[in-house]
């Protein structure tokens, strides 16, 4: 298995073939994720989940994935209980963790933390979010939600709505979509536009990109509406945050003119960007998307920690 022992720091670390392989594998893990089938793929393995930033879904879905596959977790969930507060470097913390575990799942508020961890660790490191940079496993489950509905990613028209500047989930997702030949429609307040260098990278991947700040027009012939939350903690100052907070909201009326098959995705938690009335429309796919986190992370972990041949 080509993924064995690999670090997953950025979505750029995975080819489209590897992503397809992970998604196929994840599909076969769905019954295990639902508790209808059992698996011992991670028996005897210890996975450290080190979260230096709050998380519910990501950490729990990683831990659920490990436990469903018969492995065990070593959890750092609160920075207050570690010695990082006493000034220990992330580098040293990760070296220590890598000697206690078979793989490390890391979330950290600084961009590049996962790359540093991968350098410090001789066990594989999975990036579960580094500041506003990357969140590759979220992109994988987003792709799976789209693929499950449409059977393909090529040619899909995907609207990316909201905070495209600091939103790490869209950064990872946009790169993957560009590689699969999806069409991207960017719908963001001017202050939260996609970083220029990332846009350039997407263009060099051959992506068809357009801008449509007007939401109703953006969704008109779209297949996917991917909504992000404006994350207060990423803003360097309060004023910049306040100028964009609440600047978009998806409700049932926004979706009136959309295609019947359009799906709405959101990495969750939501904070008012998607009105609960959307939950009752056939467009709502974000709870299914959240469930897919478990089989996707199962597939990834079991590939990375696959036993060596004969071993």
């Amino acid at each position, binding site marked *: 298995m080509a993924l064995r022992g690999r670090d997953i720091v*950025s979505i750029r670390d995975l080819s489209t073939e590897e992503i397809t392989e992970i998604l196929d594998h994840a599909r076969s893990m769905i019954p295990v994720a639902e508790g209808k089938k059992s698996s011992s793929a991670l028996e005897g393995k210890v996975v450290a989940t080190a979260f230096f930033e709050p998380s519910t879904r990501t950490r729990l879905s990683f831990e659920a994935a490990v436990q469903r596959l018969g492995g065990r977790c070593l959890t750092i969930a609160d920075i207050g209980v570690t010695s990082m507060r006493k000034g220990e*470097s*992330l*580098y*040293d913390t990760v070296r220590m963790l890598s000697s206690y575990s078979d793989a490390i799942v890391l979330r*950290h*508020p*600084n*961009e*590049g*933390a996962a*790359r*540093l961890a991968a*350098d410090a660790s001789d066990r594989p490191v999975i990036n579960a979010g*580094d*500041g*506003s*940079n*990357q969140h590759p496993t979220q992109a994988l489950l987003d792709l799976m939600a789209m693929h499950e509905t449409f059977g393909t990613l090529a040619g899909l028209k995907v609207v990316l709505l909201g905070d495209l500047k600091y939103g790490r989930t869209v950064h990872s997702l946009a790169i993957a979509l560009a590689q699969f030949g999806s069409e991207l429609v960017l719908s963001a307040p001017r202050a939260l536009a996609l970083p220029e*260098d990332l846009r350039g990278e997407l263009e060099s991947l051959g992506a068809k990109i357009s801008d449509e700040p007007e939401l109703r027009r953006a969704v008109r012939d779209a297949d996917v509406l991917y909504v992000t939350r404006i994350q207060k903690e990423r803003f360097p100052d309060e004023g910049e945050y306040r100028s964009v907070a609440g600047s978009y909201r998806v409700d049932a009326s926004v979706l009136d003119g959309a295609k019947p098959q359009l799906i709405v995705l959101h990495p969750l938690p939501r904070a008012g960007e998607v009105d609960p009335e959307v939950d009752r429309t056939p467009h709502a796919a974000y709870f299914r998307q959240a469930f897919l986190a478990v089989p996707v992370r199962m597939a990834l972990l079991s590939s990375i920690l696959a036993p060596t041949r004969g071993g």
Partner: protein
Amino acid sequence: MVRELRITPIRNGTVIDHIANGLALDVLRIIGVRDLDKDSTVSIALHVRSGKIGWKDIVKVENMELSPRKVNAIALISPSATISIIRDHQVREKRAVDLPEHVTGVVRCPNINCISNQGEPIESDFRVVRRRPVVLRCAYCDRQVTDFLRHLA
């Protein structure tokens, strides 16, 4: 050549020639004039006519040879530069600077939230993603840098 030796010849040291016009002071910053031994002379020629690149700057430093890191930093800001090692008044070695694929410890990441700016026991690390003009990408946070002159470490 005789015409060009308007500044005092040196016995031992380094000549950095064919520096892109106007960048001699940045080259001096990279060299770190403060690190030089106090008896050494540094001479600078600004805006010198050059057949190769039109106008150029030249920096000559006595009693010093450049570390590979400093050579990389010079390559970054002026790929046209050449470096000559002078021993006993003679040019003993002469080479063009060469930009490696990774530039470590030379440029600071402009992203203040980057892990390379948090006091971790690591050096900055940039991948050269384009050579003409030079574009760097932080190996940690993926930020692209083109105005690295403003971010020399």
